[in-house]
């Protein structure tokens, strides 16, 4: 996974490449490249061609370049395995069970049932 930067004269500001452990010019793997981009103001919002140029200069893996091109993180599964992509799950368990189902809702008592609005009301 380790890759060598293609040129020692890479067009990056001093100290922006690599992680805390890596100095400028060290090899960077995919995670280090992502971290370097994430913390650099001129890379983070680079779009399209420019971002691809930055990745190519960093000698990013094909799967990272593809992810950047398509916006589809699934390409990184090639490098990291199937389990990596979106692990987001609902993390609220509501507290709904604390409530009695048929507990009256006092402030709504006696109020008219609301009816659906028409499409252009």
């Amino acid at each position, binding site marked *: 996974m380790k890759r060598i930067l293609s040129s020692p004269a890479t067009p990056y500001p001093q100290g922006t490449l690599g992680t805390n452990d890596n100095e400028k010019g060290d090899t960077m793997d995919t995670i280090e490249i992502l971290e370097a981009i994430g913390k650099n103001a001129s890379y983070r919002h680079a779009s399209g061609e420019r971002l691809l140029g930055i990745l190519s200069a960093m000698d990013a893996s094909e799967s990272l370049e593809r992810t950047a091109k398509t916006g589809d993180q699934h390409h990184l599964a090639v490098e990291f395995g199937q389990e*990596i992509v*979106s692990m987001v799950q609902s993390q*609220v368990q509501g507290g709904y069970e604390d409530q009695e189902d048929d507990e009256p809702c006092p402030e709504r008592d006696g109020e008219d049932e609301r009816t*659906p609005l028409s499409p252009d009301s």
Partner: protein
Amino acid sequence: MNTPSMLSEPPSRRGSIACVGLGMVLGSHLTPLARSHIEQADVIFAALSNGIVEKWLERMHPDVRSLQPYYGKGDKSRKVTYQEWVDVMMAEVRKGKVVCGVFYGHPGVFAWSPHAVIEAARSEGYEAHMEPGISAEDCLYADLGIDPGRRGCQHFEANQLLFFDTRINTDTYLILWQTGLVGDRSFKRLRTEPAYRQLLVEVLNKDYPLSHEAIVYRGATLPIEQARVRRITLGELPNVDITAEETVVIPPLSRPRRNRAMMARLDALDRMFENPG
């Protein structure tokens, strides 16, 4: 771990827990203090947005234990999983370990276990606290150009609108979390079908016309991504695919009405305090 042991270990070492946020974007959002909690902990438990972010965290500490395997594959209630998360973290705290729970975004925003573990630890006399992180909510304000103070802002888990008769103030922004699995009462499913979102739309349609705008928002999690913003109508909501990583924003429909009685009372106070005597 990086601090001299004299400083990091009090004389009678007791377990503790800190729940910290990693923020949303790899490399961009982790605060220096959250990083320090990670580096100084004995053991890390992690519930993150994807495996790449988890790999990044593994670079910061040699003992990162993913909480991901506690999820079932559609066969186990998340209520069980989240209690298990609390239990495994507490087990290490009771062993006297400095524990750090790392959660994506803000650990206390639409997340049950971090609050629960802090409460459990404190109730047993352990030191526990939460360190805020940049949440999906924060990214949403930045990417959509919304200031929650401009018109007010209400946040609900989408289920709350179905399970409870919930009052909506249409003068404000309405932010719906976890819409992708609205209507799931088993707490086992990862998504629900359009028919469930149709019920949500029915509820919303009591306050908003079907032609009203709905914004489906996904903030970036990798720094090579940009936010995805889909602008649709409320009526279209059931038929668009909404992932677990998306939040739905309903912009204000109405304008707030002036409270004339209160204005008059403020006038009276102004007269009294601006021209005393």
